[in-house]
């Protein structure tokens, strides 16, 4: 996993509010919680069926999903067409509970569970750069649709690569919850890429 600060200063016209099920963690604040780049060392208990790669996958995918939700919640205010809006709503409704699943798994296994803000300072495969986020935020109407679909395909393809990387890591992907979850990501996001490719084709020419 590579991590760097990319978007901590980016101001988007959207925040992750109004999602009662999104936040999973206890207590308040932990001000300046720096995220994974500040060294929550991963310790794998003896006898555990999961590996460091599994933990990193679950932690990293929380950031990955969070950014997808941020992107999806831009659709309405940026004048997305009804089909793109519906797809973005689906991605939002799908990935919010998946974040809960990942956080729950990490908590049950005594691992650090990042929150939904972790996308600000984490870069996983396919995630948008600050410039790409700004580009998306600046687009309206059909330009937004085009940028959204292109960037979300990139984002989803990155998730598929994360799963590939997971299963290619030695002894990883065996723990049942991680195994099921990773396979579900592939099923859902492969199908969504197909839908997005179609929607992209249907947009009027530039």
């Amino acid at each position: 996993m590579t991590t760097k600060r990319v978007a901590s200063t980016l101001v988007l016209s959207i925040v992750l509010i109004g999602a009662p099920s999104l936040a999973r963690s206890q207590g308040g604040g932990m001000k300046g919680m720096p995220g994974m780049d500040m060294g929550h060392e991963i310790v794998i208990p003896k006898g555990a069926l999961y590996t460091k790669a599994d933990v990193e996958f679950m932690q990293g995918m929380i950031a990955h999903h969070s950014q997808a939700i941020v992107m999806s919640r831009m659709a309405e205010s940026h004048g997305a067409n009804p089909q793109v809006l519906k797809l973005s709503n689906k991605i939002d409704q799908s990935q919010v509970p998946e974040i809960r699943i990942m956080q729950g798994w990490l908590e049950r296994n005594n691992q650090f569970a990042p929150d939904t803000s972790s996308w600000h300072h984490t870069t996983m495969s396919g995630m948008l750069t600050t410039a790409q986020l700004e580009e998306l935020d600046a687009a309206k109407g059909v330009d937004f649709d085009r940028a959204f679909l292109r960037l979300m395909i990139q984002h989803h393809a990155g998730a598929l690569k994360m799963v590939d990387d997971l299963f290619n890591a030695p002894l990883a992907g065996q723990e049942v919850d991680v195994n099921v979850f990773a396979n579900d990501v592939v099923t859902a996001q492969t199908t969504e890429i197909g839908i997005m490719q179609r929607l992209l084709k249907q947009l009027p020419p530039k």
Partner: protein
Amino acid sequence: MHRSCKLIGLIATVVVPALLSAQSYPSAADPRSNLKPGRLDAGIAASNMRLVSFSPKPAVFDTVRGLTFINSDVAFGNGHYAYQGNFAGFTIWDVSNPAKPVMASVVQCITSQGDPTIIGNLLFVSAEGAGNRNDCGKGGVQDPKDHMAGIRIFDVSNPRAPKLIKNVQTCKGSHTHTVIPSPTNPKIVYLYVSGQQAARPETELAGCKNGDDPADSTNSLYQLDIVKVPLDHPEQAAVMPGARIFTGLDGSPECKTFCAPVDTRRPPRGGRGGAPGDSANPAAVRLNTGPRNCHDVTAYPAMHLLAAACSSHSIMVDISNPEKPVRLSALTDTNNFQGRHTAGFSNDGKKIIMTDEWGGGTGPMCQANSIMELGGNTIISLSQNGKKQTQRSYFKLPAAQSAEENCVSHNGGLIPVPGRDLYVQGWYQGGVDIMDFTDANHPSEIGYFDRGSIDPPPPADTARGVELPGAVAPGRGAAAARSRGTIGGSWGAYYWNGMIYSSELDRGFDIYELTPSTRLSANEIAAAKLVRMKEYNPQSQPKLVWPAAFPVVRSYLDQLVRNDGLSSDKTSAIAKSLDAAEKQSGAARAASLTKLAGEVDADAKGAKDSARVKTMASEIRRLAAASK
């Protein structure tokens, strides 16, 4: 010829698809809303069915939360046994007395996801997970040669001591499998093996290969895997060449029906080929998004048909030759339909149900704000012997569930009520639901059983949506997390020999009985109980046949009363005649029934539901013949 053309035209105008979101969640007044949470003491709401017994999960499967020990599917065999899969083995229940099921044995054998089927004394179990080992043991796969992915075969001739006799390895493992009997040799069955994960590396299993080309015959993806099992020598079960039924399917077809609204501001360009910017797509995703395998397939051997639920596609397959299945048709639902999950046929084979496992079964997709067209059933009509599929409607559990309840449509099977298409089905923590899909355009609910969520809702202060909640440091969240995020509910619910059986992921094993109401009569329930099956594997759907019997005739009569299909003076007269005939016996009864059948035939003319009246007449005639 001319008449039939006109008829087709008429049908075409009648079956204009229903509104996009005809269904909406009812108010919180539904008894299923706000049930008390609890694992074993949750609140219960039921309609048209009652809980006969609940058996908790075996203790060995109840040690940690998460998916490690969840129950999975269930199969029925040897007259009175239910074989309940678990991600870590299986349980055999003797259900001779449904009020008191007896645990015959619990077998510990790590095998996610453990979907079972039973043929005689052979139990077949699907193995997919990366941590499954040849020796069934815990601790995961340390050496790839120990990895077991495919079909395990157990001998359960002694239900108290099942024996593992063979592991059949397949390239993609087995998420689910379906038994197809050989149409010519009763000593042979085929297992169609489904699962959407990637192929194992060749270094782990020779001959396995991942690739992007669906037509490449060496590619393990894009094929339905087939295992041939000689029943007298199950140890010789072996993988056959797979069926390449996915070639040429595009994962991104045009939306034709039930689409999201077309953008009226900027109508899409006509023709194919897409926008100029398309080829310059910087995402450059070179990915075939058509289905590379199915999640689940349901066979209807009596009709030589297979309904395959394969990610974006509903695929109909001719299985006349089970070794060489042939694709007949494929239908997509591009209404952001995520993953075709499970299929089921109506008994006449003219309709299929396709379910959509939005959220993979672990997400709460039945909340009040959840998208209605996702995560439910869709009803598809079949014509031209399966060559044409037409999507008719959606059905979603008509009661909003909480954020604590993983919920989506899942496995089920028909309830054998003559004259109606009833499907009982598990919806995970959405409970068990009975859908009437007799009218493909207007499916509706006629019964349910639901418990409150396993976990209580989180405290209000942690449920607030904020972007920067405090992150959980290692070791701090674990205690609280134990009582949250539990995945549970009904994996599948099936009617078998008078009872409904439901495999509950986290809690255990439920048995229910139907109870009469205005929506389901005592006669219909009695008629259903007349259908007996020694063995029942729901994914290999049996043709339902009813004996000649009074409850069968009265089921049709009750339906005609309910739908006002025949005038009430006539239905009352028929009911009296049936009562009188039942008091008679032998030739006298036969004569009375034959006379009645003639009268009912005449009644059919001018009846609103004349087809049903005619069917009733023929059932009366059949009963007459049986009375002699």
